[in-house]
C-alpha cells in the first residue's frame, strides 16, 4: 500500500520528465529529418524551467489561471487510471470508458481557461479542437469497442492479461484494422500534423495557447508531456500488450515515433477536411474491423 502511494506520487513526476524527453527527442528527430542538427534531447526540460521562471505574464482571471491547473490535474488523474508497465494503480476502479471520460477533463478545463482569455484565436482553436475531437473520437470508439468485444471486458488489466505470452498474443494481430484506425486517430489525439489545426501557429497564433505564457505555458507543456505518454500508452495497453516498465516506455515511444515521422513530412489539413477524413477512411477501416470482431 505504501509502495503504491509512493509510486503514485513518484510516477507522475517520472512521466513528466519522460514525456518532456519524448518531446525533446521529437524535436531532435524532426530536425534530423529536416537535415538539421536540432536541440539537445533535454531541451524541453530547459523550456519548462524557463517558463516557470518567467514573471509578470498576463493573467486574465481566475478561470484563466485554473485552466492549466485543471489540465494538468485531469491528465494526472488519467495517468493514474492506466496501467503503466504492469503496475496498476487505480485501473481496477475504472475501465476504458472511465478513462475516455477522464481524458476529457483536461482539455475541458483548458478550454474554459482559454475562453476567459477573450481572444478569438483561442476560441477558434478550441472550436477546431472540438471538431477534430468529434472526428477522431468516433474512430477511437469504434476501435475500442472492437477491443472490448474481443476481450470480453472493458478493464485494462483484463485486456493486458489476455495479451501476455509473447508478441503473437498481442491484439494488434487479430485486431489489425482496429489498431490501424486507432493509430490514425492517435495522430490527431497527439496533435501531430496533418491534424494540428487546433494550434496552427501560422493561422491562429497557436490557438488555445495564444494568451498563455510563462508558467501557464509551462503547465501546458507538462500537460502535453503527460498526454503523450497517456495517449500512446492507451495504444500500447490495448494492442501491444503492455509490458514491464522499460518495455512499456519503449513501445510507447515506438508508437509516438510513427506519429512523429508522419508529422515531420506532412502539411496541415483544413479543419473541415480533417473532420471529413476521420469520418470516412479510418471510420470505415474501424467499422470493417468491428464487424469482423462481431462476427468472429
Amino acid at each position: 500500500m505504501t509502495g503504491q502511494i509512493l509510486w503514485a506520487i513518484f510516477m507522475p513526476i517520472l512521466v513528466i520528465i519522460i514525456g518532456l524527453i519524448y518531446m525533446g527527442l521529437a524535436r531532435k528527430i524532426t530536425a534530423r529529418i529536416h537535415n538539421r542538427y536540432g536541440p539537445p534531447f533535454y531541451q524541453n526540460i530547459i523550456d519548462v524551467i524557463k517558463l516557470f521562471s518567467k514573471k509578470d505574464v498576463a493573467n486574465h482571471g481566475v478561470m484563466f489561471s485554473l485552466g492549466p491547473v485543471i489540465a494538468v490535474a485531469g491528465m494526472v488523474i488519467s495517468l493514474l487510471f492506466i496501467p503503466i508497465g504492469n503496475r496498476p494503480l487505480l485501473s481496477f476502479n475504472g475501465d476504458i470508458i472511465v478513462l475516455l471520460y477522464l481524458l476529457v477533463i483536461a482539455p475541458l478545463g483548458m478550454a474554459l481557461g482559454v475562453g476567459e482569455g477573450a481572444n478569438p484565436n483561442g476560441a477558434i482553436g478550441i472550436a477546431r479542437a472540438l471538431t477534430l475531437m468529434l472526428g477522431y473520437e468516433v474512430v477511437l470508439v469504434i476501435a475500442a469497442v472492437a477491443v472490448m468485444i474481443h476481450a470480453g471486458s472493458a478493464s485494462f488489466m483484463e485486456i493486458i492479461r489476455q495479451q501476455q505470452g509473447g508478441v503473437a498474443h498481442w491484439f494488434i494481430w487479430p485486431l489489425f484494422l482496429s489498431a490501424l484506425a486507432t493509430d490514425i486517430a492517435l495522430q490527431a489525439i497527439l496533435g501531430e500534423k496533418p491534424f494540428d489545426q487546433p494550434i496552427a501557429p501560422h493561422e491562429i497564433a497557436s490557438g488555445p495557447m495564444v494568451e498563455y505564457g510563462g508558467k501557464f505555458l509551462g503547465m501546458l507543456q507538462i500537460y502535453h508531456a503527460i498526454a503523450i505518454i497517456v495517449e500512446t500508452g492507451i495504444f500500447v495497453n490495448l494492442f501491444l500488450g503492455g509490458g514491464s516498465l522499460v518495455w512499456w516506455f519503449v513501445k510507447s515511444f515506438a508508437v509516438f515515433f510513427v506519429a512523429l515521422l508522419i508529422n515531420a513530412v506532412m502539411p496541415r489539413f483544413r479543419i473541415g477536411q480533417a473532420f471529413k477524413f476521420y469520418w470516412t477512411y479510418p471510420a470505415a477501416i474501424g467499422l470493417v474491423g468491428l464487424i469482423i470482431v462481431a462476427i468472429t
Partner: protein
Amino acid sequence: MFGINMNPYELLAAVFGLGAILTYLLGHFDRHLKTWLTLITLALATYIFLHLPNEYSLESPSLLFGIDKLSWLFGILTLGLGTIVAFALLAYPELSPNFYFMFILNIGASIFLLLSRDLVAFFLMWELMSWTIFAMILGDGGAERGRAATKYLVWSAIGAAFILFAFAILAKSTNSFEWSGIVAGISQMPSGWRVAAIALLIAGFAVKAAIMPMHTWVPDAYAESPHPFTAFLSGVLSKLGIYGIFLAFFVLSARFELVNMPKIFGTHIFGYILAWIGALTAFGASLIAIKQEHAKRLLAWSSISQLGYILFGFGIGSAIGIAGALFHAVSHALFKTLLFLILAGVIKRTGTDRMAELGGLIKKMPLSFIFAVVGGLALAGIPMTIGFPSKWLIYEAAIHQGFIFTTVLIFAASTAVFLYYYRFVFSIFLGELHANHQDVKEVPFPIWFSYILISIPIFWLGLFPGKAMQIFAEIAEQFDLPAVTNFTATTITTPLGSFNALIVGLVFFASFAFGLLLYFIGGRTRKVHQYDTFLAGEADEPVKLHYGQRFFYFLERELKPLYRISVEKIYQFVAEFTRFVADQVRKGFFCGNAQAYLYYMTIFIVILVFAIWRIKL
C-alpha cells in the same frame, strides 16, 4: 392527518386544487404572494406525497390511484425540482397569476399521473398535464409564442391520440381499465394487437419525451415558454414521457416474449428498434444542437439528444441498461433543470439568449458561471458528477449486449455534447464582454440559491451512485425486471468493468492539488484587462471580437448532407397538403351556391341507393 378525516390522496388533490385557486385569486394582490403560496402548496404536497398509503380508489368516475417505487422516484423528482423552480420564480414577480395557476395544476396533474393505476385516470391526468403546458407556453402571447404553442398542442394531441387509441385497444382486449388487470390479461391478447398497442403507446409517450421523429415541437416550445418554466418543462415534464415509455415497454411487454420475435444480440427486435431510434435521436439532435444560434434552442436540442440516451437504455433492456436509463432520467432531470435555470438567469439580466450578443459574463456573473460549469460537467458526463455513472452504465450495457453500431452513434453524440456545451458556456460566459452588458449584475438570490440546491444531488449522487442504484434495483424488482445488484455505495461493477466514483473524486482532488502546486511554483502574474489580448499587435479598443456566431461553421459545412435530412420537411409537406385540401373543401365544397348544394343532395341520394343496394340486407 391535520385533524381532517380525509384520505391522503383526496387531501393531496385538495391541496393542489385549492393551492392553484388561492394562488390565482390572491396572486392579483401582491407580487410575491403568489410565489410563496406556490411554495407552500408544493411543500404541503411533498409532505403528503411522502406519506401516501398504497392504494386509493375513487368510486365514480372510477379512478384508481396508488403509489409504488417508480412513481415515488418520479414524484420526488417532480415535486423536488418543481419546488426548486418555484423558488427561482421568486425572482420573476412579473409572471401573471394565470401562470402560477397553471403551474400548480400542472404539477398536480403530473403527480396524479404518476399515481394513477388505471387507464382513465392516467389519460385524464396526462391531458391535464399537457394542456396546462400549452397555457404556460402561450403565456403572454406574441406571434412566435402562439406558433410554438399551437405546434406543441397539435403534437400533444397526436401523442394523446396514440395513447388513447392504445388504451382503448388494451381495455377492449383485456376487459379491464386497471393497470393490474391489463398486465394480467395482456398475454391473452392477439399478438398483432399487442404489438400495435405497445408501439402506439411508445409513440404517444415519445411525443412528450421528445424522441425523434416526434420532437419537432420541442425547440420551439422550449424557446418560447417562460424561461424558468422551461427548466421544469425540460427537466421534469419530459421525464413523464419517459415514465410512460417505461410502463409501456417494461410493464406491459417485458414479462413475456414479445410475440416470439426474432432476437438480435440477445435482445428482441422491438428493443433493438427502440435502441436504434434512441441512438439516432441522440446523435441527430446533438448534431443539430451544435449549429444553434440561440442558447435556449441549443439546450432544447440537447434535451432531445439526452432523452434519446434514455430510450436507448430502455431499448437495450438488460439490467444494466434499465438502471442506466433510469439513472440518466434522474441525472438529466437535475442537470438540465440547472442549465435552463442558469439560462433563465442570464436572460433575466441581459434580455437575450442569442449567443452572438452575449459573452464575457463570467466577470459579472461568476456564480452563474460556476454552476453552468457544474451543469455542463454533468451534461458532458464527467466523473464525479451524476452524469457519468448514468452514461457509463448505458455504454457498458450497450457493449455488453453487443449493440455495437448504436454504441458508436451514442459515443459520437456524447462527443458532440462537448461541442455544444463548450459553445454554450463560451458564448455566454467566456470571451469578450459585450458593450451593452458592462453593468450587468449577478442573478438575484432565489435563482442562484436554486442553483445550489440542484447542485447538491448532482455531486452527491455523482460520488455515491450506489444510493440511486438501490432505488433502481427496487424498481426493477417490483416489476420483475432484471436488476443490477453488484454495487456498493460508491462502486458499480458490471460484467465489463467497474467504476468507483469516490476514488475518482479523491484522486481528482489530489491531482488538482498537484496542479495547484505547480501553479504556485511559477512566477507571479499580472492581471490584465480583458481587451488586452494578442491581436497581432492591434490595439485594444472595445472591439467586438466575440467569437459567438457560427461557432462551428467549418463543421456545419462538412455536415451539410446530414443536416439536409429533416423529418420536418415531411411534416411541412403534410401540413401543406392538408392546407391545400382544406382550401379545396372550403372553397370547392362549401361554395355558397344553392344549386350546387341541391346537386350534392341528388348525388347523395344516388350514392345512398347504390350503397344500400350493395349491402346485403
